């Protein structure tokens, strides 16, 4: 049943993406100031939204784990964090490429990119922590606490870095001004396949956690005699 869900999701996502790419590359007109590179926004921004949604979901799952002690929530939190890291990395790298075209340098301490980088470092620490703890319930407990602290920090990080960078000359990636309605629509519309992809990856990753636990159970059975 789960396999079928993942397969259907993946096919639907692929079709939607192909359609969107065609529209993005062939149909939509250029953005006046920045040229074709601006089209990267259709992946750059929804990737960030997806990453945030994942980290938010991970926090909710972590709270639920601490309350209910069901390891399924822990599996969700771990999976959501890793998927969030992948989409966040995609956001960061596309932002750097975009910046390289617009200003000629790879990293400009733009507040959005910097905040995302800090967030990714925090969640990379989460993944590292999970690797360091072997016992399942202890790992779940500790990572739940870290996930909650990390997500509580995310808005604070964004505000503080935004204030920090407004004290220095601000290179603006998004070109300011008003986006044409066609662009705005595609921005949200392209979020859908990315979200579906995130869900598919999440389901796959969650199943791996479950398999991992099966293996642990088998190992214990092995050593029981």
């Amino acid at each position, binding site marked *: 049943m789960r396999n079928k869900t993942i397969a259907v999701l993946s096919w639907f996502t692929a079709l939607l993406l192909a359609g969107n*790419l065609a529209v993005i590359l*062939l149909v939509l*007109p*250029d953005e*006046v*100031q920045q*040229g*074709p*590179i601006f*089209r*990267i926004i259709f*992946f*750059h921004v929804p*990737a960030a939204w997806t990453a945030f949604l994942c980290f938010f979901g991970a926090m909710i799952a972590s709270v639920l784990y601490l309350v209910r002690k069901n390891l399924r929530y822990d599996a969700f939190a771990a999976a959501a964090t*890793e*998927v969030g890291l*992948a*989409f966040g*990395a*995609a956001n960061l*790298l*596309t932002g750097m*490429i*975009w910046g*390289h*075209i617009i200003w000629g340098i790879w990293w400009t301490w733009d507040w959005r990119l910097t905040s995302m980088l800090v967030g990714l470092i925090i969640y990379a620490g989460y993944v590292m922590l999970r690797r360091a703890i072997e016992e399942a319930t202890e790992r779940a407990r500790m990572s739940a606490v870290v996930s909650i602290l990390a997500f509580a920090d995310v808005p604070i990080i964004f505000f503080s870095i935004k204030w920090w960078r407004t004290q220095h000359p601000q290179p603006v990636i998004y070109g300011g001004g008003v986006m044409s309605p066609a662009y705005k629509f595609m921005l949200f519309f392209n979020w859908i396949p990315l979200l579906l*992809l995130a869900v598919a*990856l999440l389901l*796959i*990753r969650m199943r*791996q956690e479950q*398999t*991992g636990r*099966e*293996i642990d159970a*088998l*190992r214990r*059975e*092995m050593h029981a*005699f």
Partner: protein
Amino acid sequence: MFPTLIQTAGFTPEQYQNNFVFLFYGLLTAWLVLLAFVGLLAGRQRKLQRELERLRLMLEDKGPR
């Protein structure tokens, strides 16, 4: 192929070409990152499956309790 070339202000054809090339690099990067993650998942899945099979075989060898 891209009639919008004329509409864009201030770009020489060479700059425009470069701009487009980097757009493709950017899109490629985004998808490479996600593909790398899928690869990571697939690799981990294979490792888990192998471990599962190994343990099942070992348990069978030990025989019924």
